[in-house]
């Protein structure tokens, strides 16, 4: 175990001067304006900020969904900014799980089949049933998305994301479309995953109260990180004041 010989924890992500610009010339939008960052493995990190502050853009680049305009972004020993499309696909397939604000389930597939979609192509997945049990949806695994509530759909999306036993779980506003009770339940599932499976979690949100459950909080504004906070004590999601 690296932790035993080296006291500093292994880094999951490290970025230097990361920028992202959409468009050109006068119409150009600078979504990221030079982000320097180091995130240790195994943490639950919350990215906070208003819309357009750059948090989702960073998440997309670290998740291999989008490309940076300049700078470097490393995941362990992968330099993501120089990866080819093929290598990025490989990276997403082997290391990364995603949870999106609008669940993005395939409407034509049942809960279990939506999970299977990912376990099919993963190297060492858990069974779809196991993943759904982890999010408490075992009994509803044969339902189609249209037959599930929003919270249930989001939990299917989480099951789908963790079933491959990813190294990193990226959650983009996972509770954005949910009420407080359902939202808490979803956050609890995410915290459990981080706790029990040791999965690094990066969660984008604009709900400041969520920060209390994180190991580390990155505050964004105007395309840059303006503060990094490390929580000495963390709250459980059920204790969060919504």
């Amino acid at each position, binding site marked *: 175990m690296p932790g035993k010989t080296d006291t500093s924890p292994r880094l999951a992500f490290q970025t230097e001067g990361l920028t992202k610009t959409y468009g050109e010339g006068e119409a150009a939008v600078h979504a990221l304006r030079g982000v320097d960052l180091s995130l240790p493995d195994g943490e639950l990190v919350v990215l906070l900020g208003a819309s357009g502050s750059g948090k989702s853009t960073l998440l*997309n680049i670290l*998740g291999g*969904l*989008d*490309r940076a305009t300049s700078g470097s972004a490393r995941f362990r020993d992968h330099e993501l900014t120089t990866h080819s*499309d*093929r290598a990025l*696909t*490989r*990276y*997403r*397939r*082997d290391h*990364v799980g*995603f949870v*999106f604000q*609008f669940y*993005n389930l*395939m*409407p*034509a*597939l049942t809960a279990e*089949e*939506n999970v*299977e*979609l*990912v376990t*099919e*192509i*993963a190297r060492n997945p858990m069974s779809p049933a196991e993943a759904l049990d982890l999010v408490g949806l075992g009994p509803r695994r044969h339902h189609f*998305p*249209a037959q599930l509530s929003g919270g249930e759909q989001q939990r299917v999306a989480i099951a789908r994301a963790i079933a491959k036993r990813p190294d990193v779980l990226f959650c983009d506003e996972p509770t954005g479309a949910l009420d407080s009770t359902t939202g808490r339940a979803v956050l609890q599932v995410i915290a459990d995953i981080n706790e029990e499976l040791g999965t690094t979690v990066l969660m984008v949100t604009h709900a400041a109260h969520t920060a209390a459950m994180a190991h580390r909080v990155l505050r964004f504004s105007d395309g840059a990180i303006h503060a990094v906070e490390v929580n000495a004590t963390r709250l459980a999601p059920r204790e969060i004041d919504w």
Partner: protein
Amino acid sequence: MTFLSPLDRKLLRDLWRIKGQAGAIAAVIALGVMTLVMMSGLVNTLELTKTAYYERYRLPQVFAPVERAPERILDRLAEIPGVSAVEGRVTGMALIEIDDEILPIRAQAVSLPAHGRARLGDIYLAEGRLPDPARAEEVLLLKAFADARALKPGDALSATMNGARRGFRVTGLARSPEFLYTTAPGEIVPDDARFAVLWMSRDSLAAAYDMDGAFNEALLALERGASEPAVIAAADRILDPLGGRGAYGLADHQSNFFLTEEINGARSTAVAVPPIFLGVSAFLLAITMHRIVQAEREQIGLLKAFGYTDGETAIHYLKLMLAIALVGAGAGALLGIAAGRAMAGLYTDYYKFPFLVFTLDPRSFVTGFATSVGAATAGGAGVLRAVFRLSPAVAMRPPAPADYTASGGISRLARRLLDQPGRMVLRRLHRQPGRMLGAAIGIATGMALSVGMIGLQSGFARTVDLAFTVLDRSDAQVTFTHAMSEKAIYELARLPGIESVEPVRNVSVLLRHGLETHRGAITGLGESARLARALDAEQRPLTLPEDGIVLSTTLAQVLGAAPGDVITAEIREGRRPMLDIPVAAVADSLLGAPAYMRLDALNLALKEPGRASGAYLRLAPGAETQVFETVRDMPALAGIALKEDMRLAIQEVMDNGMGAMRFVMLTIAGIVTFGIVYNAARIAYAERARDLASLRVIGFTRGEAAFVLLGELGLIVMMALPLGAVAGYGMSALIASAFSTEIYTIPLIFDAHSVASATLAVLASAVFSGWIVKRDLDRIELVSALKTRE
């Protein structure tokens, strides 16, 4: 279902979800493939059945008519190198009298061998029995004639042969590959009812025509690879001293010529028309696939986010496209086989084949499937490539709201003139012109197909109309047994009930230009002929030149000759001179492939001045019966034909022969046009269902929401109509030439009627399709439509 991967399960459920639209696309591609398989199968079947029929009943390859040749000459004919079998027979012209006809009906009497079957030119006994060789009064009758005249075995009839009238009894009805089409001498259109063939014992017929121990027609079969021209030349050398009338090959045999031309017509239709249908279907398939995949953009992004590679994702969507294309092509192939078989059955009856050899063209399946799969792939691949270029993060987001700011200019004007839904329609058109144009081009192609097919129907009518009202303005046509002096014309002109008479001389001829030959006739018309004329390309009467020959366009094409060229005419009657004649002009072709000369010039060239082989008559109203009763006793009269009968006969050929395909094609064109419009409506609905549901949620009425959808469809249709009319012109030309044969030429008709009819068809399809999607829109469940992104 467990053995299927989740992606495949998604595929099946997606297919089920879009079943309406997928079904509509598959149906259109099915029609394209069906037309191809049906037509090629039909042509193959007719060709093979014809060949099999010819072989089984030993149709000869060379016919050699002669005045009178002793039996032993057959041995000399058999010695010609390349000849494998020889049969001599006696034939003669006869006139049959039946109760309900004033005029006797012309007939050809053909001898049956004394023993056994004919070595060549055998017959198929369809009903009854063969005549007893010992009974001179027993005859077989051609089944087609018997059917047309309701005669059956056991009936009696009387016939005049070589001037003597005799009574006969019909013992059976026969068919023969030699007489699939029968045409009375001097006429151009076959007519079952007006020409008979009867077979009787050789002895009886020989007695009637003074042919004891002799024959007047030799039939020759050739060895494989033998040279037909060489055999014909050798046969002519042997028979010429005995009054040979010129041997000819099967290609110049009238019935075979007609059948061959019909099959050629079917083939050129099969080559030209199905690819148009298939092309239109393929185009639609490509467009719709493009739009279906476009709608899947977010799911594609999601698959990529999970780590599915471009290849895996592409294969998934390829399967979706192939499923639709293959179901369509498969259904088309099956329908094509069924339709081909049904058509082949109909044509077998029409062409009087006693049996049917049904075959399919394997290439049509390959072409049909390859085109369908190729079009589907091409349509989908373009979008996939575009989606793959996006990063998954971008692909997964709904496309950024289309930028409508550029349409500011429109909106200022529009705001004054249009309400909100109206502006939405207009802006979308302005913002996504490519997509709208694609849909409009799709509909325009369907419309062009209809324009072409409707124009084709008018083309057939125009041909008949011109041929029998402008070109031939007579009421009846008489044919003499041989070329007569002008006295006969004067005699006719004096008869009561005949208002005017114009002489005509038809001379059978072999025309030659370079390596091309055509066996036909030169028609000599009077200088100031008014009843029968040649027409120029603008359908104006053409003044025949003092010398030189005028060729019809069809004949000019066959011979590869143009005005100024000199062609050789080998006259096949009288002294059989060879003439070199300059081509003076080209006349419009309607029926057949005629060649015209001035009557005096033709007679001069033949050194037989003042002769006519027949005449065109203008009759006083209601004088038909009177005239028929007078002329029936004219000794030199071979026959008289009412123009109306000939018109009906050609109409019959056009409506029941290969020309009947135009009705089938028109139907298919109509369905394809509807299918395309319906698809456009369905796609517009699928693309906008969410937006429309949003409109309803924020308080728009059903009518207003429908207006946004139907207004868009309406605009697309309005764009399509002029495009369709323009494309329809090209389509009309293509289709008219595909349906023209040497028997009849179909002019390009592109007129207000065809454009208007096609426009109506498109509008009716649009209204009906609009009604269907409007019904779906009215039923849309607002909440669920907004919740699920599909």
